[in-house]
């Protein structure tokens, strides 16, 4: 079990770092990277739990692959948004972006 715990711990740390990055970074690119960290935290959990709890199966592995593909698509969309925002506002700092303010 000690092996699984280590992986889960790493996953949790990654999640925490990712959330922190997504919430605290001023640069949108940093926020995107934080989100990538959250994805990967989830991936580590999928893979580790699959390996240790259901070694005969591979659904967790498949989910990880699926999440990686999803993350790639997300990165594309996210970077495209950041690029467009930069073109329009000449900035990528999140505190300057309040278009949604009511």
């Amino acid at each position, binding site marked *: 079990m000690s092996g699984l715990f280590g992986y889960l711990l790493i996953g949790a740390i990654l999640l925490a770092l990712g959330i922190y990055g997504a919430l605290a970074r001023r640069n949108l690119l940093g*926020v995107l990277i934080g989100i990538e960290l959250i994805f990967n935290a989830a991936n580590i959990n999928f893979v580790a739990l699959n390996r240790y709890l259901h070694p005969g199966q591979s659904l967790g592995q498949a989910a990880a692959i699926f999440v990686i593909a999803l993350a790639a698509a997300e990165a594309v969309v996210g970077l495209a948004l950041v690029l467009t925002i930069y073109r329009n506002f000449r900035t990528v700092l999140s505190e300057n*972006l*309040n*278009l*949604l303010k*009511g």
Partner: protein
Amino acid sequence: MLEHAYLIPLLPLAASLLILFFGKRLPLEGAFLGILAAGWGLIQSIAILVSIYVHPELLTNAGASGPFFEMSWDWFSVGFTRLEVGVLIDGMSAMMLAVVTLVSLLVQIYSVGYQHGKERFGRFFAYLSFFTAAMLILVVSNNLFQFFMGWELMGLCSYLLIGFEFERPAAAYAGRKAFITTRIGDLGFYLGLLLLFTTTGSLNFNIIGSEHLGTLAPVATLIALLLLCGTIGKSAQVPLHVWLPDAMEGPTPVSALIHAATMVAAGVFLLARFHFVFALSEMALTVTAWVGGITALGAALSALTATDIKKVLAYSTISQLGFMVLGMGVGDPTAGLFHLTTHAYFKALLFLGAGSVIHAVHTNEMPLMGGLAKKLVFTSITMGVAWLAIIGFPFTSGFYSKEAILGAVYNRHQYVLFGIAAFSAFLTTFYMTRMMILTFYGTPRDAHRFGHAHESGPSMTIPLMVLAVPSAFLGLLFHSHGLSFDKWVQLTGKAAEHTAHAAEAAAGHGGHYIVLGASLAAVSLGLVLSIAMYVFKTPDPARLAAALPGVYRLLNDRFFDPFYVKISEIFCFLPARFLSAFDYIVIDQGAVDGVGRLGGMLSRVHRWWDDVVVDGVFVNGLGWAAQKLGAGVRALQSGAAQAYLLATAVGVFALVLWAVGVFG
């Protein structure tokens, strides 16, 4: 012949409608239609008279009211009451038919000349025919309802004809006055009819007269007095006589028709027709007799000083009607009807003659006439005949009929009334002689008018000559052939008893000679006094009037008119003023303005509601609340994506904690 008696009233009715609607397209504006209808009526009436005299069995029904012939048709029914229209021919109505149609025919022929070239020529004849038809409807009526209908139609016609020259305010006023005054009497008559009907449950004269006399007896006095009101109005008895002198505003032929054949005759005819009711009540008869006596005397006094030739005749009509009513009141309807018949002829003649005079000199005022006998030969001779008849000169028609009434009064031992009647007869002789002298005798007092005067055309003189015949000889005809008038006019059993009783009494007491003496004395005294005063001027009437101004004023006073003006002030103007005040204060200011003010108040309340509640609370209040709420919630939406993300993370974290059971 009798079966078709309904034609007599219907033809003039049809004629009047035809003239009214198509008169303009017909020659003479249709006047000949009315003349033809009246002419046919006259022929048929005389045929009926002769045939029921020769063949009394034609009067098939032998009711309590004497023999009669009756036809009736159902008109309509109300509940169980059938209203019928019918024809009732008995001696009384047959006699009246002949009188009405003859006078109406002659008046219409006369009017062709008299109304020539005047305004509304055709309409005049339509009205005359309608008037005649109304009277005939009343005369042949066999029931209360039809009688009343004819009665009221005559009221309408009198209004139309008296006010015929309505461009003159006096004529319009006289028309209204005649209508309203007679209407007051009609109210009593109507109530009497209703009471008679509710008491007996029948409208038919003969059914009431033969089957219901017993039920009638307790209320007979009231009914009779109410019916008498009708006569007082229609036949111009005191105190409702005031309309008749004013009715002289109508064209003269109308006066002739009203005073002889229609209208005023209806009131007397009413007394004869309902005599079976009057015969039940001694009191009603007494009242009737006194009304007649007072009227005869009062009107004769009023006639003494009148200077308008038609006014003299008007008062003489009232006076003679008083005689007739007196005759009815002493329980001798045949005497009253006899006088009605003879009076119809000579009074029509007098009026038509007066019309001829007025036509010639264009004035009604006798002081502007005089000496006209030379110019108006036919008129003066025929009027002379009528004059002799009305004063009761021996062997003229008026002599017999007036004597019949005097005899009836005497035989009932009403000596005061007898004195009044004899004195009235004396006054009649006096003022009629005065009228004749002032008009036809002496030197012309207005040379210009006299110079232009000329005898009227044949359409006016021929009726005068025709009327002169019955005026002179009708009484003689009855007496010389031993025909008592009673034979023509057989009335109720009780009335016949009265008459028989009276005749007996007369024979027993030698009263006949007293009556004859009184009537001859009245005529001769009146003649002597009048000739002395107006021919020989001893005493000179002008000086007499100057010497006795109080008496002269009293004779000219109209007594009742100012009184009626007061009455109408009290009963019409005061209520009118009260109602006007009521209208202004209660209706206008109270109701109308009040409703307005209430509306104003309500709308102010409504406005407050609209402003404060609808607009303030709902419309603006909701907007304001939404704004405030929005402002509060807007703070949450910072637009900072990371703040949202933080909230999401915290939320998820909390959910996770909850999922793993941290919160219990």
